[in-house]
């Protein structure tokens, strides 16, 4: 039987803290450099060292980037999970394993490739201090042999992965060569079911980037000058990337003077407060967190909504409730984030679905926060934020910052004192503001989270309260056409599908599968809340619309049910995935087929 070319999923089962991450990245970058699309996913424990960790490397000629649950090649280096890992391999798959694991009698339908990692490490790796890490590089060599990855590409993978440590290249290349040599001597006469063949220009011009890094770069390009955060998985790498970019792009090389303040706060309350204090004072400010931090930020989010202070909040969602599964992905904060705060509160919520959108929406978030004088929440997730994604290179922004309705000294002069902080001059619900420090006697006003009239004076007047809340609702409605609009792919099917965020990648693949089975499905990818007017049009144009999301309660379905006209709500169906693993195409296609079988 001919081998399957450039289409497989590799699972590396290792122990966390053992340095397997570098080995996995080298493998990823080696395959990427062959011109073959890759989509890696880390499945890691909330732990520093010693617990099982997995690396799921999807290789797909068609460029699918969603997780795939079946594994064609297992790299087994963890005795704790050996039996479990072996069960995840497809029949006919290949298993590269530590030779001390007993393979006989376990499964008859897979091919075993035992490797004496311990002995090879001891005898072939000279460095005592690096032996543990470098032993993992040995499996890269073995796998390269089995799949036909040219040695040059492995070298490229090492150089790319360890770009800042060229001194480490030779020892890593040697370790990979040990594995490659072991394959040559022992397995080169045993072809497996899959093979990789270079594709000229296949990945040319593409970058590999994680969503948090992309969002951090978006913050730089979007003019963020104050960032406050508290460490929490999976958002920490966003502010850590931002710190790296700040060192590189926002620091005067001669004086060391910095054009950004990045503060590691004492908790998420303070992180939100610092960002809001800075936003109030006129800076473009942000904070980044995940579920437990978002819970704490509810208090400040309500203040910023009601007092109308711009701020950008990144929520890199993880699996709740409570501490939940801190290192697993989720879209479970959607409903909470949208209404974050007590009382009647509504926010603008951006829903990036790709790494490129993490970059672009980060920039837009600052414009929207300034334009609408309100918090903008950017909801990414662990899968999007912490895994590497292929992307076209990002565009350099051409547009200037939109700082919104800010009155200058000249404006105040012209108005002769006749301005009111919360007056709706333009009928869009968006008032004018001044920044503290504006040198004009009429510039000052008193911001408060308590009841206020249009001149920002304290009031408990029922009329003033209601008028203000109605204006805030008007402002929020107006944002429906200003936030990133939905992306629609329609082919005239009676069936529609709505998804957002990282679910997109599973939907792309599921639609192809469904179309191949004679069930084409139109698709609307929602990219922000409040929902754009096109969403109602899309639902109206389809008999049944499946809302696919990564949470238990169908939170987007709930929001759509509330905001769409009642006659359209009956058309909505729900598909939910919430086990903490990134959603796979099968988790979209299978339930949809099952539900359609009932319908037709």
């Amino acid at each position, binding site marked *: 039987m001919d081998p399957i070319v450039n289409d497989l999923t590799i699972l590396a089962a290792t122990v966390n803290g053992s340095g397997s991450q570098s080995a996995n990245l080298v493998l990823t970058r080696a395959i990427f450099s062959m011109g073959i699309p890759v989509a890696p996913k880390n499945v890691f424990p909330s732990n520093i060292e010693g617990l099982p960790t997995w690396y799921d490397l999807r290789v797909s000629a068609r460029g699918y980037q969603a997780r795939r649950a079946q594994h064609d090649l297992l790299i087994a280096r963890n005795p704790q999970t050996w039996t479990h890992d072996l069960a995840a391999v497809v029949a006919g798959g290949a298993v590269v394993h530590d030779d001390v694991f007993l393979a006989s009698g376990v499964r008859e339908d897979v091919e075993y490739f035992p490797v004496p990692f311990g002995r090879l490490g001891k005898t072939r790796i000279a460095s005592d201090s690096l032996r543990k890490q470098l032993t993992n590089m040995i499996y890269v060599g073995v796998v390269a042999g089995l799949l036909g990855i040219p040695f040059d590409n492995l070298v490229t993978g090492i150089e790319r992965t360890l770009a800042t440590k060229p001194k480490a290249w030779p020892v890593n290349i040697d370790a990979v060569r040990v594995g490659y040599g072991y394959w040559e001597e022992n397995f080169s006469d045993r072809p497996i079911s899959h093979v990789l063949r270079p594709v000229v220009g296949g990945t040319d*011009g593409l*970058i*590999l*980037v994680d969503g948090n890094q992309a969002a951090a770069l978006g913050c730089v*390009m979007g*003019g*963020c*000058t*104050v960032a*406050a955060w508290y460490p929490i998985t999976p958002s920490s790498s966003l502010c850590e990337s931002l710190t790296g970019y700040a060192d*590189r*792009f*926002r620091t005067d090389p001669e*004086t*060391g*003077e*910095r*054009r*950004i*303040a990045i*503060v590691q706060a*004492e908790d998420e*309350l*303070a992180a*939100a*407060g*610092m*960002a*809001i*204090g*800075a*936003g*109030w*004072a*006129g*800076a*473009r400010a942000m904070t980044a967190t995940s579920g437990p931090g978002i819970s704490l930020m509810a*208090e*400040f989010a309500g*203040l910023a909504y009601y007092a109308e202070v711009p701020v950008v909040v990144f929520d890199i969602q993880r699996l709740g409730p409570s501490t939940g599964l801190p290192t697993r992905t989720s879209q479970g904060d959607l409903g909470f984030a949208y209404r974050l705060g007590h009382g009647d509160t509504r926010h603008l919520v951006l829903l990036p679905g790709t790494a490129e959108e993490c970059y672009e929406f980060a920039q837009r978030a600052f414009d929207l926060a300034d334009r609408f004088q309100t918090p903008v929440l950017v909801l990414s997730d662990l899968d999007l934020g912490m895994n590497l994604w292929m992307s076209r*290179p*990002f565009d*350099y*922004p051409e547009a*200037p910052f939109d700082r919104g309705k800010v009155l200058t000294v000249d404006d105040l002069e012209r108005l002769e004192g006749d301005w009111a902080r919360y007056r709706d001059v333009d009928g869009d619900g968006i008032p004018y503001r001044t*920044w*503290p*420090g*504006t040198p*004009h*006697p*009429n*510039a*000052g*006003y*008193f*911001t*408060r*989270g308590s009841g206020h009239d249009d001149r920002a004076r*304290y009031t408990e007047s029922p009329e003033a309260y209601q008028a203000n809340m109605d204006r805030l609702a008007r402002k929020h409605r107006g944002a429906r056409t200003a936030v990133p609009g939905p992306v629609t792919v329609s082919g005239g099917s009676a069936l529609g599908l709505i998804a957002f965020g990282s679910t997109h990648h599973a939907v792309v693949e599921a639609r192809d599968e469904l179309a191949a089975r004679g069930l084409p499905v139109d698709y609307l990818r929602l990219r922000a809340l409040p929902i754009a007017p096109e969403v109602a049009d899309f639902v109206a144009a389809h008999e049944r619309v499946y809302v696919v999301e990564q949470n238990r309660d169908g939170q987007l379905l709930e929001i759509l049910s509330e905001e769409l006209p009642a006659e359209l709500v009956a058309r909505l169906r729900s598909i939910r995935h919430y086990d903490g693993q990134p959603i796979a195409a099968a988790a979209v296609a299978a339930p949809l087929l099952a539900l359609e079988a009932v319908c037709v």
Partner: protein
Amino acid sequence: MSALAVNRIGLAREAYKGGPSTLCAGCGHNSITNHIIKALYDLGVEPHRLAKLSGIGCSSKTPAYFVEQAHGFNGLHGRMPALATGAGLANRELVVLGVSGDGDSASIGLGQFMHLMRRNVDCTYIIEDNGTYGLTKGQFSATADVDSVHKKGAVNHYQPIDPCAVALSVGSTFVARSFSGDGKQLVPLLKAAVAHRGTAVLDIISPCVTFNDHDGSTRSYSWVKDNDEGIHDLSFIPYFEEIRVEYEAGEVKEVDLYDGSTLVLRKLSEDHDPTDRLAAMRLLEESRTRGQLLTGLLYVDEHAEDFATRERLAEQPLRDLGEADLRPAREQFASLMRELM
């Protein structure tokens, strides 16, 4: 017609006033407001440069009662330090003045209060300390005296938190205590606090005439008058005034503040060196065991770097920086994209 008195930047005292107070008549907080007005007027702080921030409670209402022209932010209970930190980072030219109460600083916001001082954020941090929750009708606060008796008879069994002791323990660079009714001491302290670069903490005992002005409370007028022990007689000389001091050897200590101002301390009852943190801690503890309230400048460190300086922030307000200052050049961006390929 007599010419209207003006300060060094040509403003009348009127320019430092705010809206009418809605606090109880006789509230110590109103006296503090008046002392703040005098201090800011004397210093000639430009009203537009002042950023007044506060938490929640009676004390936090007071920024509305001074310097109407300035921007104010009455934020969340116990969270003013975070707002003040952010505002100061956005614009280093602002004169940041925070007003809080004992509920804000010793209970719900104790963490933020400590971290503000730990970072030495450049601001004046006032605690209008009355030992009680006034707005919610008189519950004990965490600064309430142990064994003090509530209006309705309840007794507080728990040790008070002393904001000044907390401040000293986390390395605050300016720690002082005063009494709302003692303008002679308080106004120079307020001026020095504003002139100080870094977090200047002022715990101001301020009797609550409605809920905590009874016998046995160390925050009643009568108690403070009888038991206040000032450690210095203070005067403050702004940098723009010629220094003229009646100097008596061995009895006067001058503290030079970063902007060139001078705080002059005349020995009163204790020969306290306010640059000696350990001595300040000892004095606080001794006065506590004697049942006395120590007032005055307990500690000052004029050499510590404030937060923005330590973070090497640009002098120009960050909020004024534009695209050219904040976006890397096209070539730099393109090179970054190549690295990601």
